[in-house]
């Protein structure tokens, strides 16, 4: 590998590292420590909020797996990817100001704090904490492997060394700086993702001799590449539409996303974030996936989809520019794992330890514990990633759909339906996760839709039915 490529990457890693360390000096101690460490004191402005939502959501699959699939299937896959535009505004609009206001009233720091106050049920808390820890831990491990592999493939160092470099650069700032370091670095990473998209898209269009020429060659190779149905006609309208649930509106149920909806400063920040977020997520998804399709004309015959983006960047760009482009997927991975790591650690500390083991824990001890648990979780992910399961995207999607099916109704209905109660929430989580796992293993893509659709429908009915069995709705006016 050449140094032209490695230098921008190294520069990016060092920059993120330094900013993370610098931000961590602002961590307060005293009574607000938990709010500060896990929620940055609810002080996010519009730009940072938009960037952290997009960057946390965008992962290796937006930059590596997705464009690789677009390379194989053509414009139909870009169409599918554009279902994600809605994530830019939907989560913030639906959870809305109500979620932010309620979170302040009940002093919620985590998503589970909200569920706990809303449903007043130990089982809701335990089940949610379990789902978060199990699913997000596996998702994080998969992303961690992705991060290691990226560094390995760009630099040529061994996988273990690559993993070590990756872990060091992420762990130090997350442990020391908490949420504030995570969101500030997310903002930088988001900017890198946008710049990388612009460069690779422009480079690919120029190398391919213009869009008209590229489309002509694609049509000559296989007309289906420019139809919405995919090169092998596997993309039915129903299947593609079902991704509006998985990677569109269902994203409301992802804890790492919804927790951000309680972290912003004021209405103005939320308004700005919706505009910026919609633009940025649409731009990245459109640009990266289009580049994948266009790449087919420039570099035909790549067998491994995950290699499309790296090879394309090295082919059409000078080394140092390729380095900037390849920093984008790395940024996407880092910005996802840092958020998830902090979320898993907050579930253990705030939701389990402080709720049930030691409610009156001393402030200084909680502080040390927060650093400690975050470090332990991070190091165990690192350990697991050394000898990884080979199913990055599978694991990632499994966690994704399972969490959506578990949380979407307890959050949304809990916010807007007064009658919803603990029985409903428990039924919803159990049915959602259970049916997702069962269907995924036995009847994947049932009736031609992505597996996630049925579990989300089932968990909705479970919530309604559960809520109509006995059980009280909350007596306060908080909700």
């Amino acid at each position, binding site marked *: 590998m050449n140094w032209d490529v490695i230098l921008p990457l190294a520069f990016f890693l060092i920059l993120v590292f330094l900013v993370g360390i610098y931000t961590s000096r602002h961590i307060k101690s005293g009574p607000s420590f938990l709010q500060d460490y896990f929620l940055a004191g609810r002080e996010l402005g519009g730009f940072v909020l938009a960037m952290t939502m997009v960057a946390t959501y965008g992962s290796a699959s937006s930059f590596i797996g997705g464009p690789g699939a677009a390379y194989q299937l053509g414009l139909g896959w870009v169409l599918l990817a554009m279902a994600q535009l809605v994530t830019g505004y939907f989560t913030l609009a639906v959870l809305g100001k109500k979620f932010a*206001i309620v979170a302040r009233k009940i002093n919620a720091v985590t998503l589970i704090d909200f569920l706990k106050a809303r449903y007043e049920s130990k089982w809701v808390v335990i089940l949610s904490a379990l789902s978060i820890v199990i699913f997000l831990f596996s998702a994080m491990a998969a992303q961690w492997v992705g991060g290691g592999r990226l560094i390995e493939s760009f630099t040529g160092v061994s996988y273990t060394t690559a993993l070590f470099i990756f872990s060091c650069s992420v762990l130090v700032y997350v442990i020391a700086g908490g949420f504030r370091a995570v969101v500030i670095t997310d903002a930088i990473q988001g900017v890198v993702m946008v710049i990388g998209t612009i460069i690779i898209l422009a480079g690919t269009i120029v190398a391919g001799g213009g869009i008209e020429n590229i489309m002509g060659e694609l049509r000559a190779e296989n007309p289906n590449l420019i139809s919405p149905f995919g090169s092998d006609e596997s993309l039915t309208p129903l299947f593609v539409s079902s991704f509006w649930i998985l990677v569109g509106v269902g994203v409301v149920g992802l804890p790492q996303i919804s927790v951000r909806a309680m972290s912003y400063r004021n209405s103005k920040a939320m308004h700005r974030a919706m505009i910026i977020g919609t633009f940025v997520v649409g731009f990245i998804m459109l640009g990266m996936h289009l580049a994948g399709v266009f790449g087919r004309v420039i570099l035909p015959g790549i067998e491994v989809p995950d290699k499309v983006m790296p090879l394309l960047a090295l082919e059409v760009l000078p080394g140092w520019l390729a380095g900037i482009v390849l920093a984008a997927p790395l940024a996407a991975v880092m910005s996802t794992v840092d958020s998830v790591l902090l979320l898993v650690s907050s579930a253990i500390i705030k939701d389990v330890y402080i709720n049930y083991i030691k409610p009156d824990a001393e402030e200084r001890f909680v502080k040390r514990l927060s650093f400690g648990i975050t470090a332990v979780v991070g190091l165990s992910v690192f350990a697991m990633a050394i000898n990884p399961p080979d199913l990055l995207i599978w694991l990632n999607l499994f966690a994704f759909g399972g969490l959506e099916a578990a949380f979407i109704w307890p959050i949304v209905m809990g916010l807007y339906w007064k009658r919803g109660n603990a029985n409903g929430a428990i039924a919803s989580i159990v049915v959602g996760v259970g049916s997702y796992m069962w269907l995924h293993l036995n009847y994947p893509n049932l009736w031609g839709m992505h597996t996630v659709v049925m579990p989300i429908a089932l968990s909705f009915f479970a919530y309604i039915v559960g809520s109509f069995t006995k059980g009280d709705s909350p007596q*306060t006016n908080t909700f």
Partner: protein
Amino acid sequence: MKKGNDWRYRISNKEAIMGTVLAILNFIWWYAFAYGLGGQPVKEYTYILGFPAWFFYSCIVGFIVFTILVFIMVKFFFKEVPFDSDDNEGEGSSR
């Protein structure tokens, strides 16, 4: 607690509905152009700026139009409310 809800929740509920309606419109736009125009045989496609018309309208114009609609929705229909105050006194004055 006083009877009735926090006045801010009414605003929030309305905004949540607006967001949902926009998402539904977004889906219809995306679907109608993609499969309406893209469903015909590839030979009969027309092209705009090099892109097949279905893709141009569904994905590129759709992206721009809905970013603008989000801007309009947020600027003209979403209201700014204070987050921190527990002041129920503000109830009558603002609405």
